[in-house]
């Protein structure tokens, strides 16, 4: 990363690190991350990985650390609660809100806030995994998150444990006098043969201006199954620079759906590592933006062992002067023979000023593999719109229906029925609004 050292980074790095009385290893991890973050600078468009995502609007601002959480709009917040979630962790401005959270005991599983998890029987699991997957050597934002890590969500499942209902992790940002910085964190350690569904939801008050650098770490042991839903519905003025790092042991299944709707500028660095043979990954993504929003998804699936299976589907719908970026890298190492990987990217441009930059990238070093990717960018098919009009729909309605159909394909992949309905309604509203 090249040098642009400004107020932005100095303010963030100048924040007092958390002083909570934690285990020695955690303090060391924070110190290490802070040292590393001090050595790094904000990436610029000269960095290949950031070519299309200009962070200049972010670096012109400065963000204050959060000492005391603000007060969220409770009525609006409750609307976001998943009815079927038995367990819910709510963080307001990055600070754990026990009063809004709901925790229940489950056999063989621990769902709790980082502080209590560190005191609990599974503290060793935390030590083994926290900060190991989301490496901060070259990732400034994961470094900042780790350096100022104080609250976080922890889900630890013992071997064979299973959570029938989804766990919801809800991050809400409030409106404050000064723009603030928050560092949401989730560690999910799924033991051998365990199963669970987790929904991460990032929301913010309409007028809030803040910077969020969330980090999610997911470890799947042998034959574990994790369904992961990540909803980015940040406030329109927010900046989110997120990292999601996943490690899969042999025979594990990871199915993720990432939906990006909010934030002025957002980025997700999504890395899935196959650490054992026969891993299965399904990654679905939808980006729906307009106005002057910029949304960037960078995914890397690192196939290092044989018999892996990947299905990745990414869709972007861009209107207004929105700018969507997708960089999907599939790496097949020499040992990963018999890998079957397929990636598809489809972009829909709905206005003259909208833009999409994509690079579906294959790096293959094994010969006995099946790898394919496809990318298509265009607008809605006029023939389809004509057909719908011939059936009595008005032109804008026809376009909305087609846009809805395009995006709904990803939303339908979410394994939580109530969430699918909620997002479909939001989608209808959004497509109607844009006309």
């Amino acid at each position, binding site marked *: 990363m090249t040098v642009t050292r400004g107020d932005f980074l100095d303010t963030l790095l100048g924040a007092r690190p958390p002083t909570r009385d934690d285990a020695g290893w955690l303090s060391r991890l924070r110190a290490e991350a802070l040292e590393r973050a001090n050595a790094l600078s904000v990436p610029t468009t000269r960095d*290949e990985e950031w070519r*299309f995502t200009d962070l200049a609007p972010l670096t012109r601002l400065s963000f204050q650390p959060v000492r005391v959480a603000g007060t969220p709009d409770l009525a609006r917040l409750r609307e976001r609660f998943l009815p079927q979630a038995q367990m819910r962790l709510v963080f307001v401005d990055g600070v754990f809100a026990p009063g809004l959270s709901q925790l229940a005991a489950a056999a063989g599983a621990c769902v709790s806030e980082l502080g209590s998890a560190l005191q609990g029987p599974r503290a060793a699991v935390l030590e083994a995994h926290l900060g190991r997957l989301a490496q901060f050597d070259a990732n400034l934002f994961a470094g900042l998150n780790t350096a100022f890590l104080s609250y976080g969500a922890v889900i630890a499942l013992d071997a064979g444990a299973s959570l029938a209902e989804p766990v919801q992790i809800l991050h809400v940002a409030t409106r404050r006098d000064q723009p603030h910085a928050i560092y949401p964190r989730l560690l999910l350690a799924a033991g051998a043969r365990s199963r669970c569904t987790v929904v991460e939801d990032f929301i913010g008050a309409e007028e809030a201006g803040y910077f969020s650098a969330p980090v999610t770490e997911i470890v799947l042991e042998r034959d574990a199954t994790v369904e992961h839903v990540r909803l980015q519905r940040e406030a329109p003025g927010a900046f989110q620079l997120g990292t999601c790092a996943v490690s899969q042991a042999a025979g594990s299944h990871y199915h993720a759906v990432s939906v990006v709707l909010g934030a002025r500028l957002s980025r997700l660095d999504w890395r899935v590592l196959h650490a054992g043979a026969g891993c299965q990954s399904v990654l679905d993504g939808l980006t729906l933006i307009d106005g002057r929003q910029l949304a960037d998804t960078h995914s890397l699936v690192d196939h290092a062992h044989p018999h892996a299976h990947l299905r990745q589907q990414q869709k972007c719908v861009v209107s207004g002067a929105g700018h969507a970026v997708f960089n999907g890298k599939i790496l097949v190492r*020499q040992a990963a*023979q018999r890998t079957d990987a397929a990636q598809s990217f489809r*972009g829909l*441009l*709905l*206005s*003259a*000023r*909208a*833009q*999409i*930059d*994509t*690079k*579906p*990238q*294959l*790096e*293959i*070093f*094994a*010969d*006995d*593999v*099946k*790898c*394919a*990717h*496809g*990318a*298509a*960018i*265009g*607008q809605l098919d006029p023939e389809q719109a004509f057909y719908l009009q011939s059936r009595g729909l008005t032109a804008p309605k026809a376009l909305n229906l087609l846009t809805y159909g395009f995006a709904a394909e990803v939303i339908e992949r979410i394994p939580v029925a109530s969430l699918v309905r909620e997002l479909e309604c939001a989608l209808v509203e959004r497509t109607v609004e844009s006309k």
Partner: protein
Amino acid sequence: MSAVLNDLVNRPYEAGFVTAIESETAPRGLSEDIIRLISAKKKEPGWLLEFRLSAYRHWLTMQEPKWANVHYPQIDFQDIIYYAAPKPKKLKTMEEVDPELLRTFDKLGVPMNERAALAGVAVDVIFDSVSVATTYKKKLAEVGIVFCSMSEAVANHPELVRAYLGSVVPSSDNYYAALNSAVFTDGSFCYIPKGVKCPMDLSTYFRINTQDSGQFERTLIVAEEGASVSYLEGCTAPKFDTNQLHAAVVELVALDDADIKYSTVQNWYAGDEQGRGGIFNFVTKRGLCKGANAKISWTQVETGSAITWKYPSCVLLGEGSIGEFYSVALTNNLQQADTGTKMIHLGRNTRSRIVSKGISAGRSNNSYRGLVKVAPKADDARNYSQCDSMLIGSNCGANTFPYIQVRNPTAKVEHEATTSKIGEDQLFYFASRGVGAEEAVSMIINGFCKDVFQQLPMEFAVEATKLLGLKLEGSVG
């Protein structure tokens, strides 16, 4: 299976020999004085010297590009001889050509006097940096086509050269283009006047001869309104142990309704099995569809060079212009290739098509890097890209880096990529039908590359098919 494959791939380089000709060389290294020497030797006008010097000054401020997926030792640009020319002689007929030189072409299978007559091809032979003999010039002159070496063009048609040189690839374009602009010694120049269809395929044979002399050719082809031309470029080089740098620049300009087809078969020395020696091929090729409905088509078969860094591109400026790129890139042993194309859609209704086939064998690394860019004003632009990779053996790599940038909602851009291998089941099926492994591989490869070979002029298609077979001998088994 690998035993047969290995035998197939590892055939020695047949064109490897050094011709002992006395050449007049400049001292090693690069400075403004060397550039002045080159310019003086070639009796160039002042504006060209100025063009070279400004390119050199810009080059000094530039960084060597590091983004390509290739690895090689640092190049010492002060250890290269920038000018080498066969001793000047006045040539009137073919008989006067240095017999040593003619024998070189014989060994390569290019007896030029016969070949030119038999194939009906005008051959502008570049031997090292100075054009030695040109045939068929008269026939072309009858229809007003100028086809000569760059030095002659500078002397006889300075206004054309001055108007177009650096107009597609500016001297500050990239590191190697700047270097080339500063030190280029010769190359081909071709000008097709308005409405003229070139009566024959034009071809040039480049050969790097003097040990350690980098070759920096400069090719410029201009097709006026309604003109059309098919240009063939074929390359071989003798076997050397030290690396050789090759940084060429090719510029194509197509005006209204003009059509340029540029085909290349590149088979330079790729280094030995341990990766020693071989050519560094860092080429900038770009075509500008300046006029409405212009068409530029690049076809390349890349089988040689230790390192290839090459992106023949099309700038589609004219309304309704068309860009095409057909490529077969084969790498074996320790070869590295980072090649692809750029299609820059600037005008309305522009169309482009990319078909790229990469074959990796041995321990080589083959990357496709492409850019499809649709500018805000390029309404109804259309692109279709297909890049397929084939891996032979488990020690090689195949990568694709397709950049797609769309700024216009009416654009339709599609990209597809697949990776496959020659399966044992396929070879078994062939065997059950009585086809041996070697022939089977050749058939599979030819099928894989068919879309590209169909685009090559006849004689090149035959050569290319043979070439791939030769290159892969021993790699399938």
